[in-house]
């Protein structure tokens, strides 16, 4: 039995990574088609990652600089274990949304610490922006989580997912909270219009400005996990999870394509505008959702 | 059109020559240059298009010129003045025309003409680490400079490129 658990322990992150990277592949291809071009080779993101890991030169600015991407990656993998994935149970039974909220912050903080040590002002500004944006989208996100917890009378993610089985998705029951949730997903993924933290024209890719080679490769792997985490969380919270992995993937894909479509036609917010936006519209929507649940 | 030219002619110290109906040249002496520019601005020449200098090496003089434009009368005026080539210096016009500030910085760098009253005159602007004489002067030979500082590629070198390094 132990052998099977180890297999699953390796299998879950691998599967999560493949889902994340495949969505990245689709992302570049779909974006290219919107921009009237042919687009890159389909497996381009994978080639990029392997090339970055095969880079020879190495540079370091201190211990945190090196540890930053590693801690971020470790935190992401930890989060992956807590998010219910159909057919693979290891720790999902004990997944608690409130604990999850805290673990998810670790990755961003680790990147922030690492980038901060590189002493590049662009990185510091980018980090400051990323953390400010986190402050912005965490408020509606927490309200949305509270709404769901009150609705289903549990803080267990798996139980929330199970309660929606059979078609009564939270998306249909609580549409306002779901809209707030998808806007939060935009910010968490750093897509337009909430990409001020990595804006090339302003801060030269922000936190990543000093990262290159293997570090950047790790950050890209982390990004693949990140895409998986945010989308899987949304699917689990609002779309009732899925009974098998293909169904799960299809749901994530639909949400992701929706995100890309908006991403490609919107300019970016200034960071103060982004926070103001988050504390206004999604927060109001989430609050109304909360009130509806409370009144019922 | 004619009226504005007449008005410019009445400014004291101005020698006006008309090149086209919308381009006139105004020659003044060095000490009247700034007051002339001031009068021109009062006449409605609101825009400084460019200012720079011409090195008149044979006369041992610099010719400073200001190309002005009158938006209402649609006429260009070039105010020119000659100064001595040795220890050349002029007064700044940035109080009258703000864009002059940058042109004067370039003037100092390219011709070595000092601009009094311009806080940034003489600071490095376009060139970096320039040690030779100001490059836009006529007695600066750029071909000689190039030959002494850079090496050209020769056909024989091309063949062995990569080996002799």
């Amino acid at each position: 039995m132990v052998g099977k658990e180890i297999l699953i322990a390796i299998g879950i992150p691998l599967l999560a990574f493949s889902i994340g990277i495949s969505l990245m592949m689709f992302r570049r291809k779909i974006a290219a088609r919107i921009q009237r071009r042919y687009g890159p080779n389909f497996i381009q993101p994978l080639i990029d990652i392997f090339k970055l890991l095969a880079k020879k030169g190495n540079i370091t600015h201190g211990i945190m600089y090196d540890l930053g991407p590693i801690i971020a990656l470790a935190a992401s993998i930890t989060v992956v274990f807590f998010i219910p994935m159909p057919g693979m149970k290891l720790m999902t039974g004990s997944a608690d949304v409130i604990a999850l909220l805290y673990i998810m912050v670790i990755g961003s903080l680790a990147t922030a610490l690492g980038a901060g040590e590189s002493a590049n002002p662009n990185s510091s500004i980018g980090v400051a922006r990323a953390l400010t944006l986190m402050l912005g989208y965490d408020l509606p996100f927490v309200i949305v989580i509270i709404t769901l917890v009150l609705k289903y009378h549990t803080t267990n993610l798996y139980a929330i997912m199970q309660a929606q089985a059979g078609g009564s998705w939270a998306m249909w029951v609580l549409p306002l909270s779901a809209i707030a949730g998808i806007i939060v997903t935009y910010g968490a993924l750093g897509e337009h219009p909430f990409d001020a933290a990595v804006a090339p024209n302003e801060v030269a890719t922000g936190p990543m400005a000093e990262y290159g080679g293997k570090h950047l490769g790790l950050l890209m792997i982390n990004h693949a996990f990140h895409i998986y985490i945010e989308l899987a969380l949304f699917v689990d919270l609002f779309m009732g999870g899925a009974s098998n992995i293909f169904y799960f993937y299809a749901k994530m894909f639909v949400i992701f394509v929706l995100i890309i479509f908006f991403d490609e036609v919107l300019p970016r917010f200034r960071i103060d505008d982004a926070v103001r936006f988050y504390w206004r519209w999604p927060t109001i929507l989430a609050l109304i959702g909360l009130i509806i649940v409370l009144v019922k | 059109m004619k009226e504005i030219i007449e008005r410019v002619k009445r400014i004291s110290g101005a020698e006006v020559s008309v090149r086209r109906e919308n381009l006139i040249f105004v020659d003044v002496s060095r000490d009247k240059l700034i007051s002339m520019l001031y009068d021109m601005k009062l006449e409605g020449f609101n825009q400084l298009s460019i200012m720079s200098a011409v090195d008149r090496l044979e006369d041992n003089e610099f010719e400073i010129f200001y190309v002005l434009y009158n938006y209402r009368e649609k006429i260009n005026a070039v105010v020119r003045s000659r100064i001595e080539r040795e220890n050349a210096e002029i007064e700044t016009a940035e109080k009258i025309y703000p864009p002059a500030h940058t042109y004067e910085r370039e003037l100092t760098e390219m011709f070595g003409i000092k601009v009094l009253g311009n806080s940034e005159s003489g600071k490095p602007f376009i060139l970096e680490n320039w040690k030779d004489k100001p490059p836009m002067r006529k007695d600066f030979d750029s071909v000689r400079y190039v030959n002494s500082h850079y090496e050209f590629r020769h056909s024989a070198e091309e063949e062995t490129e990569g080996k002799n390094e």
Partner: protein
Amino acid sequence: MSKSYELFIGPNHPGVPGNFSLHLELEGDTIVSAKGDPGYLHRAFEKGMENRLYIQNLALIPRICVPEPDINEAAYSMAIEDLMGVEIPERAKYIRTIVLELARTTAYLQWMGGYAASLGLYTLSQWATGDRDYAIDMFSELTGARVYHMYIWPGGVRRDLPAGWEDEILGYVKYLKDKLEDYDNLFFKNAMFMHRAKGVAKITQEQALEWGATGPVLKATGIAQDVRKDAPYAAYPYLDFDIPVLTEGDSWARAIIRRMEIENALNLIEQAVKKMPKKGPVWTKMPNPFKWYVPTGETYAKVESSRGEHGFYMVSDGTNKPYRVAVRGASMPHMFTIAEKLLVGSRLADASHILLSLDICPPEIDR
């Protein structure tokens, strides 16, 4: 601990329009002082031109301003024609107009890509640059080169239009007019673009006149100053067009002015193709290029570029080489007099946006 810190934007930074550097001093996210640092593209044009024949300079001058090289050829040719007293044929005037307006279109499309990218909208960059390339095809059919045409030269234009080129250019005009609607829907009517651009980097009419603004920057404050109307050259006096004017004076107004100028340019091309004499010489016979002894004298010739007034001040001493040529680019006052003042007090996020809304062209500053 001091509150402010320094940030160098550029030269290796996508936020600056080309090889140019900006020294910013920031307090938090707000800029407290800005200083431009030019010179990365200095090639000593004005010195080089003194050492070359007039005809050789023709190969040098397009390189002064890369996005729109034809204005240099036109202004340089006009200066020589003025000094030599040459009148160019009717058909050449129209061809010059078409070429200049097509170049203006390409310059604005290029600008549009950069401006949209500075606001984070990369899709428009892709579309606009892709559509610009079809205009480049027109150029390469007409002149044989994609970027540096050397087509307009003293006395007229280098050669006549190829057969069927008129129809092709009309087809392109029609194509781009359709595409402009797409651009409007994607960008110029985009609520988020308006949110970002409205009220940013606002200048009043008095300030614009005082600081020497020209072109779209001045038109956006409500002054219809345009060399094409004020000192008509080429075939502009025979054509019917209006100067677009807005009164807001902010980044949004400047963007919309440029958007209107594209339409204006397309209309001018259409008119010029239709009104153009169908036959006739395109070049006034000039002496052997090695013997272009330009009479002694000084002149100032100017044209309207996509960024504002572009002029050549030329001094001739009667030989076959110019004695002194000074180039006036619109970017010089726009950058050092206007942008340095506008950047102070704005946010770091807007720095690249402001530079692009003024359409700074570094090669024109450095020369």
